[in-house]
């Protein structure tokens, strides 16, 4: 019985997400564009699949993974677990939280791999790039970015250093990379910052941040609990550009070994042509 109730709630949440979108799309299609939609039946079936899929997905997460993940975040950030005994609370150093960093990185990586929005963007990027960008290559690059981002974010909560220093430093890295990265990857890299943080990642990461901010002495959950999502949106941009830069560098090294040094002018054109 309870299962039915929660499923209906999950369906309601999904419908609330989809209905405004469907209303805008079909409204404009019928009233402004005034064209019949090709394959309308197939598209409607696709929408039904999306609604059913999101409902089952959210319901399953809520039943299986979220309770465990939240519990784990609480247990791992418990000072008693971290110090081994209850006596040394208050004298913990940032380096005592090793398992927290490892958990943060691992859960960030794993939830990003499962993030449906990222799967969507990876499929599209694979199609548009004619296969040059691999679906898994992009997803793993983004997941590594999120893993590093969340681990650094937990370090920030534990040490209590100001959020804006990290984010501004990250922006500087992004700007420098933008100058050197292949032009084709730049827009996609910027996009991958926004797609990482939706259905799967946010609830677990928020639980981790809240758990940490309420157990680390001197932190307030309401002020220090925020900011992890910002890390999870920034670091994938750096990781995706690095992924493209490493790919380009290896390509160049291979041609270098095969053909010897290429003229400087040719090397520049990689960046400059569309």
């Amino acid at each position, binding site marked *: 019985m309870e299962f039915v109730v929660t499923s209906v709630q999950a369906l309601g949440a999904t419908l*609330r997400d989809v209905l*405004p*979108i469907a209303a*805008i*799309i079909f409204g*404009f*299609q019928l009233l402004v*564009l005034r*064209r019949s939609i*090709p*394959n309308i039946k197939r598209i409607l079936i*696709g929408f039904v*699949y*999306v609604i*059913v*899929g999101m409902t*089952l*997905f*959210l319901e*399953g997460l*809520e*039943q*299986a*993974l979220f309770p*465990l993940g939240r519990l784990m975040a609480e247990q791992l950030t418990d000072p008693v677990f971290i110090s081994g005994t209850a006596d040394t609370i208050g004298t913990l150093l940032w380096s005592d939280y090793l*398992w927290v960093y490892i*958990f943060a990185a691992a*859960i960030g*990586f*794993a939830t990003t*791999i*499962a993030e*449906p*929005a990222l799967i*969507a*963007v990876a*499929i*599209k*990027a694979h199609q*548009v790039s004619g296969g040059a960008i691999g679906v898994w290559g992009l997803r793993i690059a983004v997941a590594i970015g999120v893993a590093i981002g969340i681990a650094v974010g937990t370090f920030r909560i534990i040490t209590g250093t100001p*959020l*804006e220093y990290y984010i501004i430093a990250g*922006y500087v890295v*992004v700007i420098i990379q*933008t100058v050197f990265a292949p032009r084709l990857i730049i*827009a996609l890299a*910027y996009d991958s910052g*926004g*797609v*990482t*943080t*939706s*259905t*799967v990642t*946010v609830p677990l990461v928020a639980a981790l941040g809240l758990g940490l901010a309420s157990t680390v002495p001197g932190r307030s959950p*309401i*002020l220090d609990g*925020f*900011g992890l999502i*910002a890390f999870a949106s920034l670091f994938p941009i750096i990781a995706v550009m690095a992924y493209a830069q490493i790919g380009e560098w290896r390509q160049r090294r291979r041609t270098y070994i095969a053909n010897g040094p290429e003229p400087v002018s040719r090397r520049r054109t990689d960046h400059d042509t569309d």
Partner: protein
Amino acid sequence: MRAPVVAFLKSLLDSVRDLAAIIVVIAFFQIVVLQQPLPNLGAVLGGTLLVVLGLTFFVRGLEMGLFPIGETMANGFARKGSLWWLLIFAFALGFGTTVAEPALIAVAAEAAAVAAEGGMIATDEAAKASYAFGLRMSVGLAVGLAILLGVIRIIRGWPVHYLIIGGYLGVVVMTFFAPREIIGIAYDAGGVTTSTITVPLVTALGVGLASSIRGRNPMIDGFGLIAFASLTPMIFVLGYGMLI
């Protein structure tokens, strides 16, 4: 009749592979690090099965429904040639999908609590509710303008990095002047606005537009709409914090 069944089983297997990492991480920490048994294993296994099925349906629906409609609309607008309607559509899509977003409603409520604690607004419920509503409207407006600006950029072929880097500089400058309590919320606001259903649609729209306009490269010009939708909310929330 066998081919669809085989295809379905294959995509089920893909979903299992997508979720394997989460299962491994949670099992490892539960059993090896925390050294505790898995509580109600039946519910966990049942839930995992639902997640696998759900992801399979979603990816199928993505390819059948969300991607094609995004491209159809992009083509339709490109052929109609009315810039105004396209811009109104872009704004409506960004604004309409964001203001109702459950994640944003939750964040706005938390932000109102932070603001009340920081003494920026009165601590009564009415003040908090109106603060949260104002915040949601500013984020909705921010995402609407982001998609609108992103569409203009695709049409004109402006390089995405000038706009994004300019936006970053704006965020950095505003950070110095905004009240301290709002900074964390503002930075997070960029991440929570783009939902799982909006992302594929907006991506398909951008790529579709860039493919139907001559001289635009779908890879260089088609992506980037999501990036704008993650950037402008930061600026608007910082601005909201400075004004109130």
